[in-house]
């Protein structure tokens, strides 16, 4: 399939789910989709179009969370990023680990660093942070403050 066919297929099949479609450059596409359609779109892109899952980036903005799922079509050199937007109090979304086994670790990382809940993840435990890291403190959030009274940060840029 060439680039136009892939994009038209996605647009036709999921026209109810797509909120915004940005064709940034020949190699970069950004598609905003509804959170409830995530599983179907990911299943189609990974299994039927046979794209490779690169990684997922979670961002905490002033308005809420955004998660971008990056898929790569290696034979075309194209990367399609699916973006879902979530509210900060309702940070819950379906996990794609049942579809793509390689997504297990990145979802665990986003769970502990941003506090997003992935429904249906087989093993949502801590991956990177220490056991004595307090619950409910998420480092990558925009409002993270230093909680450790014993830490020493006596030089450089003041936060």
């Amino acid at each position, binding site marked *: 399939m060439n680039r136009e066919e892939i994009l038209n297929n996605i647009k036709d099949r999921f026209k109810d789910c797509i909120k915004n479609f940005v064709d940034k450059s020949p190699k970069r596409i950004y598609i905003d989709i509804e959170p409830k359609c995530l599983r179907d779109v990911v299943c189609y892109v990974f299994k039927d179009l046979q794209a490779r899952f690169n990684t997922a980036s979670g961002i905490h903005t002033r308005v809420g969370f955004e998660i971008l799922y990056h898929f790569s079509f290696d034979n075309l050199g194209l990367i399609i990023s699916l973006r879902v937007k979530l509210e900060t109090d309702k940070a819950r979304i379906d996990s794609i680990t049942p579809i793509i086994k390689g997504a297990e670790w990145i979802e665990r990382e986003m769970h502990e660093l941003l506090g997003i809940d992935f429904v249906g993840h087989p093993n949502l435990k801590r991956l990177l*942070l*220490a056991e004595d890291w307090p619950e409910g403190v998420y*480092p990558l959030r925009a409002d*993270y403050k230093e909680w*450790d009274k014993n*830490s*020493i940060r006596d030089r*450089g*840029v003041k*936060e």
Partner: protein
Amino acid sequence: MSIKLKALLKSPWVFHLSTGSCNNCDIEILDCLTPRFDVERFGMVLAGSIRHADVLLCTGSVNRKCIPRIKKIYEDAPKPILVVAVGECSLSRGLFIHSYNCPVPLDKIIPVDVYIPGCPPKPEAIIAGVVKAIEKIKANIKNNKQMKK
């Protein structure tokens, strides 16, 4: 003077501990063993266990997960032990000073005797640092002997 210190000066066994580093310093330490620098001819070997070591080489910017480990290793080490901090990260956490996962520098957890700066320090610098440390101990021992007289 104890037999242990005498032995340390002749052929120090080195134990290498990485507390969350990018591995550049670790590889430069291993480079010291390779044929170009070859510290084995001075008797310096990598010890398999801290219980056999005379020198503790630390690299890395002290990750939160590693802090209990560092304390345990230092407790298990047979005293006297020479602690050498290799690389900017173990000196003061380097550019990771503002990282949420690196709360304190190494010398607030265990006492450090020798600091070798560099990012990473070249093998020549590491060898020079360890030799300087040994000279320092020799000088201390001489001073102590003279004072006793």
